């Protein structure tokens, strides 16, 4: 155990001693969080945003010859040209399936209009319009909230105007309809939170691949062979190297977590959950980096692969583009990557979904760590 710890700590010391690695692994991600977090707001201002899918579960049907408020929302408000540039509105009849699509991150939002929405609004009873938001689709979600708030305000003013004109009894107007925004979870996720996770995941993968390149480097410079001439078993050397990679990536994750918290006020959700998820992802990344070293064999190839892998996995996980825009096959591929599970896991924790939503991504990430760690361990013995 002492030797495994020694090899692992040596890996950490080597990372700390390399200023280029420090800049690349810690400063760059934080800089990108600042740039992307700010740039996202810029995108909203300029309206440069592609349409997102909004599911509408409307039970508020017409009572007689007049249209219900629910129908009005679907056929008039959401069909407005300006709104259509931002959202593809799809009516649904299966609420459970729609909720599953939302949970899977396939759609921007789900609007639920209860059967008594119009009747309640007209009778002065509390009328609730439910909006379930995908926490990962920040920009469109915010726009949709504004659209629906505008709609409920419009109903309120029309009811008030009707009251003043008809001088009807006060009981016929009552309370205005209310919009309830329900993020998938208890809280919505900010752009800085989203990109803090996305960048941390991307750069941790990059570091893990660089550690893989270091292992190849160690083989080329002879330090790995020298270690094998000492009375240290191959298993200990393999375990030490894997632990070293994991220690480096976990340290990087904690540094980024603390950095993003201090600089951008990023709330990572419950700290123990975030740390567990971060550790599981770091282990998966370490295993993946070591396994990649087995396949690529050349340090130069690994260096190139580290940039390519972090971008590709980042892309597939939705760190660069929203994942719900992906076609089904690509979404399936995304689910094979550790980044996808880690990103979804972190977003769930940030949204306040709790520990129940922690275990599936942790289990998948640890499985990836086990498989890739095993493949990687074969390198030293081959």
């Amino acid at each position, binding site marked *: 155990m*002492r*030797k495994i710890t*020694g*090899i692992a700590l*040596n890996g950490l*010391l*080597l990372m700390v*001693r*390399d200023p280029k690695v420090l800049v690349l692994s810690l400063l760059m991600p934080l800089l990108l969080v600042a740039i992307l977090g700010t740039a996202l707001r810029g995108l909203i201002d300029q309206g440069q945003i592609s349409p997102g899918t909004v599911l509408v579960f409307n039970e508020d049907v017409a009572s007689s010859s007049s249209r219900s408020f629910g129908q009005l929302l679907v056929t008039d408000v959401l069909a407005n040209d300006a709104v259509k540039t931002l959202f593809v509105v799809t009516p649904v009849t299966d609420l459970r399936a729609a909720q599953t699509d939302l949970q899977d991150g396939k759609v921007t939002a789900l609007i639920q209009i209860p059967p008594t929405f119009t009747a309640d609004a007209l009778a002065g009873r509390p009328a609730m319009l439910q909006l379930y938001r995908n926490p990962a689709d920040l920009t469109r979600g915010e726009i949709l909230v504004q659209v629906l708030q505008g709609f409920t305000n419009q109903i309120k003013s029309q009811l008030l105007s009707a009251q003043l004109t008809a001088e009807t009894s006060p009981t016929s107007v009552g309370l205005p309809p209310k919009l309830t925004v329900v993020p998938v979870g208890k809280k919505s996720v900010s752009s800085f939170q989203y990109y803090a996770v996305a960048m941390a995941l991307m750069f941790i993968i990059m570091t893990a691949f660089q550690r893989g390149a270091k292992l190849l480097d160690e083989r080329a*410079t*002879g*330090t790995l*062979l*020298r*270690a*094998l*001439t*000492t*009375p*240290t*078993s191959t298993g200990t050397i393999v375990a030490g190297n894997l632990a070293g990679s994991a220690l480096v990536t976990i340290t990087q994750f904690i540094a980024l977590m603390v950095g993003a918290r201090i600089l951008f006020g990023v709330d990572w959700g419950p700290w123990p959950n975030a740390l567990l998820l971060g550790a599981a992802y770091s282990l998966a990344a370490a295993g993946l980096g070591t396994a990649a070293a087995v396949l690529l064999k050349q340090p130069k190839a690994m260096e190139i692969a580290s940039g390519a892998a972090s971008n590709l996995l980042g892309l597939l996980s939705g760190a660069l583009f929203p994942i719900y825009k992906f076609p089904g096959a690509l979404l399936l591929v995304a689910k094979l990557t550790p980044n996808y599970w880690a990103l979804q896991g972190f977003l769930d924790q940030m949204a306040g979904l709790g520990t129940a939503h922690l275990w599936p991504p942790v289990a998948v990430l640890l499985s990836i760590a086990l498989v890739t760690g095993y493949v990687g361990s074969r390198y030293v013995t081959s």
Partner: protein
Amino acid sequence: MLQVRELVKRFGEHEAVSGISFDIAKGECFGLLGPNGAGKSTCIAMICGLLRPTAGEVSVGGFIVQKEPQAAKRLMGVVPQEIALYPTLSARENLRFWGLLYGLAGKTLQLRIDEALEIVGLTDRQSDRISTFSGGMKRRINIAAALMHHPELLIMDEPTVGIDPQSRNHILETVQRLNTERAMTVLYTSHYMAEVEFLCQRLAIIDHGRLLAAGALDEIRRLASTESAASPTAEEPTLESVFLHLTGRALRD
């Protein structure tokens, strides 16, 4: 101390080592000579337990390397041909790491680091990074790392490649001191005949994976003089002339 018996190593169709045998007694300094591609490094790798022999056996201090590698490796200190050190770490940090892999810890580890640094004469540079060292200094720390656990058998694979005469001289004197004063058994490979003549009591010459000659320095010299005795103008052969006589003058890759 070291017994090498009928060692064979095949890589596919190619036989890199073909039935090599030799013994090294405790406290002896033994030279292993051969041109590039002769099979020296393959031999050393099998002795160190890095390569599994196709046939044959290596025994270090009574432990069969293939059967009890950890016990055998505890008795060995290996100085590889490459500078197998971490350039961004200091000399002391490197020695601490290698000492740890040899099973040292705590105060013993600190004392052994001090001792190893003193042996190679680099105590005053212990806090400096290896990347700032000259070639000769790196070679000296490369040796120090193999001395951390007081090995009974020191295996040195061309430890003086690419360094200045002063550093080479320092290394040779250090090895001689370890051999004579501490009775450390040494297996030394080199391209420099003068080094082997200076250090070793006995030697073996190998080429194309085969043992061409083995014995005491004088015996090897006599081998060539016997073969060239027919020539009246023959001079007293040097080890280099014997080496060239046995391995030929054709250039090697």
